[in-house]
């Protein structure tokens, strides 16, 4: 089944504000993520929640999607993360969870095919940026909820696989350096 993104989700812009060093909600910026939507850096910008900005507080399952620049990755917000607000560089996508699972949409957004497509619709003289109207008509191939869940599971397993593989490489490097050093310097007598 093919649907328009706008038919299964609401799109909002993130909040433009000047963050502070402390506050009770994290202010999510692009710099905290790598190109695949993994959070990499410690959050160090915050916002004090008040009446004006509380409507921007992220809800469980909101998808942050970078609308500007060369890296259009997506990330799913989970309420276990704690209170957070997205910066204005993000689109905040609130999906109808009876039709689409947020993690599925995030996985879909982060595939090479979708990424290539976003690069083509980006407009702007120096920084390509995607218009809200264009994003709303983005056609999504929507499998059944069951299939979506399976895709999510595969994606989670893949992430785990990659993380473990990276750890193994690092540990093997450490081991190699230590063994060589040992052989050269500890056997000199």
């Amino acid at each position: 089944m093919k649907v328009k993104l706008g038919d299964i989700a609401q799109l909002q812009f993130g909040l433009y504000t000047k963050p502070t060093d402390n506050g009770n909600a994290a202010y999510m910026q692009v710099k905290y993520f790598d190109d695949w939507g993994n959070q990499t850096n410690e959050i160090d910008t915050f916002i004090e929640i008040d009446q004006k900005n509380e409507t921007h507080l992220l809800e469980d399952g909101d998808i942050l999607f970078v609308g500007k620049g060369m890296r259009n990755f997506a990330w799913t917000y989970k309420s276990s993360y704690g209170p957070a607000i997205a910066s204005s560089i993000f689109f905040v996508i609130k999906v109808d969870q009876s039709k689409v699972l947020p993690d599925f949409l995030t996985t879909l957004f982060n595939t090479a095919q979708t990424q290539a497509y976003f690069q083509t619709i980006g407009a702007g003289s120096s920084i390509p940026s995607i218009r809200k109207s264009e994003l709303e008509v983005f056609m999504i191939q929507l499998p059944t909820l069951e299939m979506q869940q399976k895709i999510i599971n595969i994606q989670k397993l893949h992430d785990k696989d990659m993380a473990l593989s990276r750890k193994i490489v690092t540990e093997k490097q450490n081991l190699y350096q230590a063994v060589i050093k040992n052989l050269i310097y500890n056997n000199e007598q």
Partner: protein
Amino acid sequence: MNNKPITQSEINNIVWKACDTFRGVIDPSQYKDYILTMLFVKYVSDVWKDKKAFYSEKYNNDEVRIQRALNNERFKVPETCTFDYLFENRNEANLGELINTALESMEDANRSKLERVFRNIDFNSESNLGQTKDRNRRLKNLLVDFSALDLQPSHLANNDVIGDAYEYLIERFASDAGKKAGEFYTPSQVSTLLAKLLNPQPGDRMIDPTCGSGSLLIKLSKEVGSNNFSLYGQEINGSTWALARMNMFLHEIDNATIEWGDTLNNPKLLEGDSLLKGNIVGANPPFSLDKWGADNAITDQYTRFHRGVPPQSKGDYAFISHMIASTYHDTGRVGVILPHGVLFRGSSEGKIRQQLIEENLLEAVVGLPANLFFGTGIPATILIFNRAKGENTDVLFIDASQGYESGTNQNRLRITDINKIVETYKAFQQATPLSTELGLVIEDKFAYRATLQEIAENEYNLNIPRYVDTFEEEEEVDIPATQENITILKKELLAVEGQMDNYLKELGF
């Protein structure tokens, strides 16, 4: 009238604002001269006004007595040279010419002090300030901006405020204009460090053969702690030389001798037929100056290059040789800021370096952090030479490369960084020389006391890592634990891969 003393930052702000008049129109390296000259005129005029008011009151408006008293002042300011006069005429069509004439008369009235100081500046220059209409508008803006500034000594917290505003601008221009204007300025903390290392004493004669706008000389004078000193400088760039002159007057150092010319090819600081000698010679010469005049060096009439002629394309050791030749032979000290290459480059430079060390002149080598200077990221080093090392043949090595505060464009030395270096140096001077062949670690990864033998064994290579061990030891790796960890990770990976396989099978792959 507001009698609250003006603060440094108020002055700095007004002056910096005045620069807006010129910004974008002409190059900062040029408009700095206009701004700084006008600041000088304003200062001298205001001091004059202040004194005039003082004497008028003192002598009950007796014109003759007032004039007589004013004639003994530091600067004489004829009526048509005052800032107020220029300000009154700010709408004249020939404003540029009026200012030029005023500067000429000011020079005439103060021959001994201001001779040639305004020679490089032309307020009527079409190429610098635009066509008549534009030019007049800019000059008027300049006068209006400065009119807001009251520099009468009676309104100032202390007179140094002006000199420091001058320094502030010079520093701002250096960072603003990038490399071009950066040539005439050593960052303030670096000259402070050098001045403290050289530790001048009352009565000292201090020389900077490449003095730029004179900030190192001023820093040195401040270290003395009294007015009992004499300053000598030489600068090759005409307009920077003029700045140095004005800078001295603004800091109320009226008897400094600042000469204009090429130090290596035409030293102007002379006593009779030989070089002028001082207790302290400090400088930040241009790094690795090309075409410094090697051709004339062999026949140098002051025999500065008897240890050898430095390479044609790198003048570093030429400046060192000149500086050492400019010190008193029994007590003189030299502090010079140069690129790291002077520590290890071979051929003629290597030979000169070896001789300097064998003559027991080199006292300390300080490696500075990278990115301290305007317009160049390369790390610099400070070499200290001392004629009075006596029995002590050891050389102090300090690796200060890690002690700094990082800034957006430039790194900065903090007061604590400066103090640490200076204290280490002083402690080194007071300690008993080593009697062993091997040197001594003074502070791990920071300071080392090297012996002459050691330096000789290193073939007179002074590269700092040879003396100060800066290798960061990696954390000890527990080999069996790591092996075990890898086994566990592999098992986990295997499990994940198994799950994935099942999934894929289930999905028909």
